């Protein structure tokens, strides 16, 4: 099937790599973070890239998922899976409650409101010491086990997170090629015209927002089990911004763009360690240069340039503008 050929290729690479490099640090340790970031970025891309609604508080849902899992398993001895599902239900309810008023706002105002939400949730993590452990965080979180198979090594976590990330990519690809996906993109294109076509634009926005939030909560729970420890620092405003950067840098309104952005921004700091003290400087410079010269995002711009190269080298194969 042509629609999913990219997805199959990606899955193949992601699942074969650990066979070739079984103990590679970048693959089994950084790769796990990349996979979690992919889940977050793919969800946020549905909201930002496809639906055109900005959120500067996405880390809050990631944190709510992580803390739900951490608190329910350590303080209430709940099964990790049940804790994960409870977290997703909680986030579903919270996201529904805040999305209805918040998504009536547009542009800067929406950015401010989501930013405020993210900060409030972060403060709650810090202040509710009795429950969350406060700034010191919460440790001794049990790991997941799948039918007796405990996810207790780096390589096992690689497989669990990678398969989860691939699942979220597949869901996103399916959604975008459907009636709901077109409604989401139509709201971005022209909200008035979308309404005139019978689309309830408020409901559509809330649906995407809630779905992205629940996906983030799922990633948060995986994060908590994988780290065995959570602290508020992981869910601060800066992480929300990093997620937005992944989506924008990779390329808005492209699922693979979000995947690409998530992988790049996870690995870039690791690779820039060679610059030592100047690491953040180079990091910032790379982000700026990409946005100046490739405002559409890396994935989309590189895609265009590849097509252009192809046209230049094989001009006869596919004459420009002669497709129809």
């Amino acid at each position: 099937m042509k629609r999913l050929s990219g997805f199959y290729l990606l899955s193949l690479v992601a699942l074969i790599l650990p066979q070739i490099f079984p103990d590679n640090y970048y693959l089994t340790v950084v790769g796990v973070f990349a996979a979690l970031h992919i889940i977050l970025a793919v969800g946020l891309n549905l909201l930002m890239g496809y639906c055109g609604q900005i959120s500067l508080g996405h880390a809050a849902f990631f944190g709510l998922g992580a803390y739900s899992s951490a608190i329910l398993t350590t303080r209430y001895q709940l099964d990790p899976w049940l804790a994960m599902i409870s977290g997703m239900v909680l986030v579903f309810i919270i996201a529904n409650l805040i999305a209805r008023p918040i998504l009536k706002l547009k542009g800067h105002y929406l950015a401010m409101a989501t930013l405020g939400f993210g900060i409030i949730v972060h403060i709650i993590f810090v202040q509710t010491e009795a429950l969350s452990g406060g700034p010191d965080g919460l440790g001794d979180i049990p790991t997941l086990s799948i039918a007796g198979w405990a996810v207790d090594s780096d390589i096992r976590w690689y497989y669990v997170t990678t398969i989860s990330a691939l699942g979220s990519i597949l869901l996103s690809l399916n959604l975008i090629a459907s009636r709901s996906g077109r409604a989401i993109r139509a709201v971005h294109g022209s909200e008035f015209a979308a309404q005139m076509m019978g689309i309830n634009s408020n409901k559509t926005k809330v649906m995407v927002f809630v779905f992205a939030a629940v996906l983030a909560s799922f990633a948060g729970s995986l994060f908590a089990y994988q780290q065995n420890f959570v602290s508020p620092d992981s869910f601060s405003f800066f992480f929300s911004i990093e997620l937005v950067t992944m989506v924008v840098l990779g390329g808005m309104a492209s699922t693979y763009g979000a995947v690409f952005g998530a992988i790049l921004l996870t690995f870039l700091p690791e690779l820039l360690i060679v610059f030592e003290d100047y690491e953040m400087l180079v990091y910032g410079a790379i982000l700026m240069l990409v946005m100046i010269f490739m405002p559409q995002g890396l994935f989309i711009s590189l895609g265009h340039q590849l097509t252009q190269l192809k046209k230049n080298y094989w001009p006869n194969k596919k004459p420009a503008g002669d497709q129809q």
Partner: protein
Amino acid sequence: MNLLRVKHLEKSFGGVSAISNLSFDLPKGIVFSVIGPNGAGKTTLFNMLCGFYTPDQGSIIFKKENAEYDKEVMYHSLHNMATHQIAACGISRSFQNLQIFFNMTALENVMVGCHLQSSSRFLPSLLRLPSVIKEEQRVKQQALNALAFCHLDHLANEMADSLAYGDLKRLEIARALASKPQLLMLDEPAAGLNDTETQQMSHLIRKICASGVTVLLVEHNMELVMTSSDQILVLNFGHLLAQGTPDEIQNNPVVVKAYLGEDI
């Protein structure tokens, strides 16, 4: 049989009265044009009909599909309905300033128009269940038919932002038609088109009417209005000035005066 009945409609912005005490009936199955000088209230009327503005006073009622008897109970009251609910009653429109989904192909634009003709929900779409795949194919075929109806089938897979202006005008109509409306409102479909394109637009409008869709047309191009309309309503400063067939309107001294000034 009347499709739409507007009674004592009033709308003002600040102190300016855009529509005052407007009443008219729109018969089913015809091309009904609303004309008037700039600022006459045509676009305000359109925006009230599709729920973008709420009328200050008056009522708009719209015949329910399959309603056989001309009774009030058979009508939707469009007052206080949201735009997407009005669309679900069977009203669709094109826009004076294009409202194309430029982030999609022409085909996808029209497939959005099929929103009300399909029912796949969010969760089944995520999982792409067999019912979703089946509906996708049906919707795609429907959209292709609507494109072909507006002579755009050769551009189906082009991105909307690469289409020419005249094609975009027809794409909006194709998208509106894909929702299978009872009433299609066209807001200046010929604005910015050349003579040939205007003639094609006139043919298209007659073809839409012949296919059973009632057309409500706002247009400045008098040639288009006179050749394609069955009935014309003339607005001036929010008041109804005259109503009648193209011949009657053309020979109505009040209309001629309002439009062209005293001397002619």
